[in-house]
C-alpha cells in the first residue's frame, strides 16, 4: 500500500499503524531494557561489585602481618565513628597507613588497565592488544626512568611517564595508519617495534644509571610493584583513571560501532578517526598513570577482558564496566599474593605474567568453540 510521506520508524512518539508490530511478551528474548539492565545484567554487576569489595577488604586483613577480619572492620568503622579500641597501634597502622592506600591503588590501577585492554582490543580489532603490547607501558616506563636518571622530582616523573606514554601511542598510530591489506596487524607490529625501541632505551638507562642510587628505582619500573603506595599516589592515579574511564565509558556504544570497521562505522554516523583518537588518548592517560604509580604491569589489560567477555558478552556497554570491576578485583588479589607468599616482596608484574599467560591460553582453547571472538 503506497504511503505518501516517508515512514518514521519508532520515533519518540507512538508508532505508526502500518507497522504490524506486536509488543513481545515480557518473558520473551529481548524483552526489558537493553544496556546495563536486564535481570542477567544486574546479577553480573552485583556479583562483580561484591567481589571487588570482598577482595579489597580481604586485602586489608591478609599479609605477612595478619590482622583479624573483625578488627579490620572495627578499624575502618572507627575512622568515621569513635569505637572502643580493641586493636593494637600496629594493627591500625598496617591497615590504615599501609594496606588501605595500597588496596585503593590496586583497585584503581586494575580497573584502569582492564579498561585499557578492552578498549584497545575493540579499537584495533585485535584480541591480543594490551597497553604493554602496544608499547605504551614501555614508553611510560622510559619517561619515568629518564626522570629518575636526571634526578627530577616526582611530579616530573609522572609528567615524564604520561608524556612518553602519549608519544608512543602517537607513533604507533601514525605508523599503523599506513594502509595495506591488514591494518590491525600493522598497528600491532608497529606497537611491538615501538615498544621494543623504548624498552631498549630503558635498558640503556639501567646501564648508565648509578648503581648505588638510581638503578634500583629504574628496575622497579621494569617489574611493577605497589610497594610505594601512598594516599597521594592514589590521587595521582585516581584522577587520570577516573577521567579516562569516564571518557571511555561515555563512548562505549560508539566503541561497539567502531569495532565493525571504519567504513561501516562511518556509514552509521560515527567519525572513526575522531572517536578512535579520543579513545586512544583516554587509554594512554590511564595506562601512563598506572605506570607512573606502579611501574609496568602486564597481562592484566590482555587477560581480564577475555575473562569478562563470557559473562558480559561483547557489547561494550556491559563489557567495559564488567572488565573494570573484574580488573580491580584481579589485580588486588595478585598484589595481595605478591606481598604475602614470601617474606620478600615479589614484583606483582611477575605474578600477573605467571598467572596471566596460562590463563589466556586456557581461555583461548575453551572458548574457541564458543566463538567468543570470531576472527576475520
Amino acid at each position, binding site marked *: 500500500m503506497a504511503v505518501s510521506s516517508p*515512514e518514521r520508524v519508532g520515533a519518540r512518539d507512538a508508532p505508526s499503524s502500518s*507497522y504490524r508490530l506486536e509488543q513481545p511478551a515480557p518473558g520473551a528474548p529481548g524483552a526489558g531494557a537493553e544496556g546495563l539492565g536486564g535481570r542477567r545484567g544486574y546479577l553480573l554487576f552485583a556479583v562483580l561489585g561484591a567481589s571487588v569489595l570482598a577482595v579489597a577488604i580481604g586485602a586489608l586483613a591478609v599479609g605477612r602481618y595478619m590482622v583479624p577480619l573483625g578488627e579490620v572492620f572495627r578499624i575502618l568503622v572507627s575512622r568515621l565513628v569513635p569505637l572502643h579500641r580493641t586493636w593494637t597501634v600496629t594493627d591500625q597502622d598496617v591497615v590504615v597507613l599501609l594496606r588501605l592506600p595500597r588496596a585503593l591503588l590496586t583497585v584503581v590501577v586494575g580497573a584502569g588497565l582492564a579498561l585499557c585492554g578492552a578498549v584497545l582490543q575493540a579499537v584495533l580489532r585485535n584480541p591480543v592488544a594490551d597497553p604493554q603490547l602496544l608499547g605504551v607501558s614501555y614508553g611510560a616506563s622510559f619517561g619515568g626512568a629518564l626522570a629518575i636518571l636526571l634526578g627530577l622530582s616526582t611530579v616530573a616523573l609522572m609528567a615524564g611517564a604520561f608524556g612518553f606514554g602519549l608519544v608512543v601511542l602517537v607513533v604507533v598510530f601514525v605508523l599503523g595508519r599506513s594502509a595495506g591489506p591488514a591494518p590491525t596487524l600493522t598497528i600491532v607490529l608497529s606497537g611491538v617495534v615501538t615498544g621494543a625501541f623504548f624498552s631498549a632505551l630503558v635498558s640503556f638507562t639501567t646501564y648508565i644509571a648509578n648503581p648505588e642510587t638510581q638503578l634500583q628505582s629504574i628496575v622497579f619500573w621494569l617489574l611493577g610493584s605497589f610497594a610505594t603506595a601512598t594516599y597521594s599516589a592514589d590521587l595521582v592515579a585516581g584522577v587520570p583513571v577516573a577521567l579516562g574511564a569516564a571518557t571511555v565509558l561515555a563512548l562505549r*556504544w560508539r566503541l561497539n560501532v567502531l569495532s565493525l570497521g571504519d*567504513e561501516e562505522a562511518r556509514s552509521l*554516523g560515527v567519525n572513526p578517526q575522531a572517536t578512535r583518537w579520543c579513545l586512544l588518548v583516554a587509554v594512554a592517560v590511564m595506562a601512563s598513570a598506572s605506570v607512573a604509580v606502579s611501574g609496568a604491569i602486564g597481562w592484566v589489560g590482555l587477560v581480564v577482558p577475555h575473562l569478562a567477555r563470557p559473562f558480559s558478552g*561483547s557489547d561494550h556497554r556491559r563489557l567495559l564496566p564488567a572488565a573494570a570491576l573484574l580488573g580491580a578485583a584481579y589485580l588486588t588479589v595478585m598484589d595481595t599474593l605478591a606481598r604475602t607468599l614470601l617474606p620478600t616482596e615479589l614484583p606483582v608484574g611477575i605474578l600477573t605474567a605467571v598467572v596471566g599467560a596460562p590463563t589466556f591460553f586456557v581461555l583461548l582453547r575453551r572458548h574457541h568453540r564458543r566463538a567468543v571472538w*570470531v576472527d576475520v
Partner: protein
Amino acid sequence: MFEVVGAGFYYRRGAWVFRDLSASVPDGKVLALLGPNGSGKSTLLRLIAGLVAPKEGEVRRSGPVGFVPQLQWSSLTYSAFQMVLMGRTRLLRAYESPGRADVFAAKAALERVGLFHLAERPYASLSGGERQLVLIARALAGENDILAFDEPVSALDLHNEKEILALVAELAREGRTVVLSAHRPEHALGFADQAVALFGNGEALVGECASLLTDDLLARLYRAHVRTFSFRENGTVHHAVVTW
C-alpha cells in the same frame, strides 16, 4: 530524494572512472547502478551515500542515507538485535548509549524484515540471507530517508534473492528513495525506475530503465552477447537476461 550533479571520480589523476554524471531520483523511486566489475559501481554508490567525496560535482540529499554494505564477516559476536541497534547511532549524541526508544525502534526494524524471532542469535551464526536482512533492518532503524544497497543479493541463492529484492521494492513503495548497485541487469529491469550504466572508462549513461537498458547497451556494457526475455505473470512483467 537525492540529486547527483555533475559528479566525477578518479583513483589516479587523469584516469576518470566516471565524469559529469547527473541523476535526479525523487522519493519512492529506485536507482540501479549497473556495470562490469571494477567499473566504479561501488564508488558511485558510496558517493551517493556520502561515504566518499566526489572529485568534481556534488550530491544533494533530502535526508540521511542508510548504507547497507555487502555481506562480510564481523569479528565480534554481537547479536542480530545489537547489530540492528547500531543503526540508531546516527540519532545519538557521542556520549549517549541507546535508550528505550532506540530499543523499540530496533525491534520494530527487525520485525519489519521478519527476523524478530532471531533477535538474540549471534549475527555471525545466521545464514547469508538472514544476515543481509539484519543489515537492512539496521539501515531502517536509523530512520533514513534514503537507502543505499551495495550488491545486496550477489552472495545469495535464488530464494533469498527474490525475498530481498521484494523487500527493497516494498521499502521504496513506502516512500523511501533507493539506490542499489547490481551485478545482474535483472535486478534493474522491472524493478528499478532509473539506471546508471557505468563503463568504467569515464563514460556513464543515465536514464529510465526501460529505455536505457536495451540489449545493445547491455551488450556494450558487459562486452558479451545479450538477449533479454520478458514475460507477463499475474499482471507483472518479469525479465531474464541471457548472455552467450
